[in-house]
């Protein structure tokens, strides 16, 4: 009898805590933002690990399990996840998170996108995202807009707690804007010649814009095109001529060429962490604070 009572309680959900909003994000940065906005009211799962290049995540069937039960899917957009998210979305059999559903949130619509190609483009021009550069999560100003839009969507999905989400999102957005200003001011104290950098790939556009840096060359001759000896020799000459002392790249890009360039030009190589260590409890703002310090160290404050 006691067993049957327990079973009935489990099945009926009696005595259980109020259901949390189940949020699934493609990237750990988005998971950290959603967790900070939603607090105890949400249960957040990130699909990709922080060290994974978000273009090339395996579409593991295990991702379908949280997606099938999600109330809200938050993804970067601008085709960053196009190589793996679409089949997962179809197989998730969850109408709430399909395109057009209340739980489908493409955060790229909320940010000011850069490098939107003008005119006709095709693949002979290298790897170009038609919707613009998708790597805006390295800029806390963009992340502030993302936090706001996540808060708005959570408020719509969980109306009884709408006020809490909106207040929390506003707090996070203000904090990130302040962090962005602080970072920009700290870097602005460096002389102009110290703020010149080389990047491996054109994925740091938003970071460069935020911190007032200047990219004098890229290790790749075109986005996604492998560097040639001729191009690398030209990058080295440019670095020497302009006194560039830092090469920036995300941790998933190959480093050997950059390190050799750094050695020959007397420059530091900064491998920027791919994403917030969300699973370890790190917050997005903590990641950005560390990033600012690393950038300062690399540029020689």
């Amino acid at each position, binding site marked *: 009898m006691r067993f049957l009572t327990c079973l009935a309680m489990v099945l009926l959900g009696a005595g259980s805590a109020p259901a949390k909003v189940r949020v699934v994000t493609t990237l750990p940065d988005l998971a950290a933002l959603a967790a900070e906005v939603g607090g105890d009211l949400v249960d957040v799962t990130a699909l990709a690990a922080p060290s994974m290049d978000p273009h090339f995540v395996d579409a593991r069937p295990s991702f379908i399990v949280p997606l099938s039960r999600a109330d809200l899917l938050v993804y970067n957009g601008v085709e960053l996840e196009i190589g793996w998210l679409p089949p997962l979305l179809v197989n998730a059999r969850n*109408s709430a998170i399909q395109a057009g559903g209340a739980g489908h949130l493409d955060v790229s619509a909320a940010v000011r996108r850069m490098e939107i190609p003008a005119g006709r483009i095709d693949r002979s021009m290298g790897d170009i995202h038609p919707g613009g550069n998708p790597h805006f999560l390295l800029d806390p100003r963009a992340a502030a807009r993302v936090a706001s839009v996540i808060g708005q969507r959570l408020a719509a999905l969980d109306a009884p707690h709408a006020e809490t989400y909106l207040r929390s999102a506003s707090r996070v957005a203000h904090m990130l804007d302040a962090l962005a200003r602080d970072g920009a001011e700290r870097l602005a104290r460096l002389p102009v010649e110290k703020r010149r950098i080389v990047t491996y790939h054109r994925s740091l556009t938003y970071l460069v814009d935020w911190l007032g840096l200047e990219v004098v060359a890229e290790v790749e001759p075109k986005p996604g095109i492998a560097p040639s000896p001729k191009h690398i020799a030209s990058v080295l000459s440019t670095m020497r001529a302009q006194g560039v002392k830092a090469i920036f790249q995300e941790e998933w890009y*190959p480093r050997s060429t950059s390190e*050799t360039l750094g050695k020959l030009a007397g420059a530091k190589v900064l491998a920027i962490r791919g994403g917030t260590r969300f699973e370890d409890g790190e917050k997005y703002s903590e990641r950005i604070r560390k990033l600012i310090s690393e950038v300062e160290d690399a540029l020689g404050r």
Partner: protein
Amino acid sequence: MRRDSILRCRWAITGTLLLLLISPAAAQEPPSPDELKELEKSLGRDRATARPDVPAAGGAAQSMNPDIALILDAAGAWFQSDAPLQTGGHDPRETGFNFQQLEMFIAASVDPIFRLESNIVFALFGVEVEEAFGTTLALPWGLQARFGQLLTRFGRKNATHPHAWHFVDQPLMLGKVFGSEGSRGLGVEVSWIPPLPWYVEVLASSTGAAGECCARSFLGGDSLDVDGLEDFLYTLGLKQFFDFGVDWSLLFGLSAQLGPNGSGLGNRTEIYGLDLYLRYRPANSTRRTAVSLQIEALLRARQVPDDSLVDAGGYAELVWNIDPSWEIGGRYEYGSGVDGDPLDPEWDEDRHRGALQTTYYPSHFSRVRLQGSVDLPLWRDAPEWSVVAAVELIIGAHGAHSF
């Protein structure tokens, strides 16, 4: 000694060319020859991990138009045998140039309820609707249905198209058991993901059981004289996926296909399959390296007049994606034979086949492959060798593949 001089000569030429090429920037203090050598070495080490930003699934701007892609597969081949025993409909089959296929993929959401996907394949002298099916997007309780012309999800490879294969030809047992086009037909499939903590999918489908191309172990002819439910072909599947940390993963499946065969009134065929896909992809690798092992085993039992025929076989393929540009792989296949097989009367002994391939990917949208194979059908006198060089080109927006 000779190699040393060639290398020295190569370095000298490369260095000179580099110096000439960078001469417009000479005002910027060109690197020394030693520095150029060092840079070249580091470039070699980074070789190829250099297309990070390309969307793997091709990218078209969002619009109301469906995703449309064209995929060309063509090959030049040499077969030692005058009558090679290729079983796949799109395999290179003869010495010389082979047009394998031009596949047109079209897909889009119809509305919030349905998605439509089709693969139309053009050969030199014909067109076939390989797949054209609807998929539900919003059924409750973890259910999903597909309906139309579809490849059955028996095992792992049958439901995929040649452009998703690592080798240029179809595994011989799939051709022997299902037909040159794999197991497919008009029908309906229902699948269910139960509410468990790990990924489990249960599926069942019913399709037409006719066709030498697509259901040859069943009613091999083109007509399907349906009198009742027993005249359809039923496919059942169970798939499970396990994560072992971030780097390792395992997909495991069991399949069965049951239906009537044409050897006599009431005679039936049963096919059972086991598939396994083990993948290692270190998440921290800057070279995006991955190693995968895929194994499928099949057992077929057929009732024929006064007898029951049982045969078995399968394949194991090991593929190493060294980096985004290069891949190598090896495959071993086996298929047993039975006496008095009405479908393959010649295939009365074991057959073994081995293949090695290397693939170069200039980009995500093209690949060039070289594959060497040795075929050992024991009913023939000697091993038969073949070499195939194949190219594949993709244009348009092609949907991402499942795991």
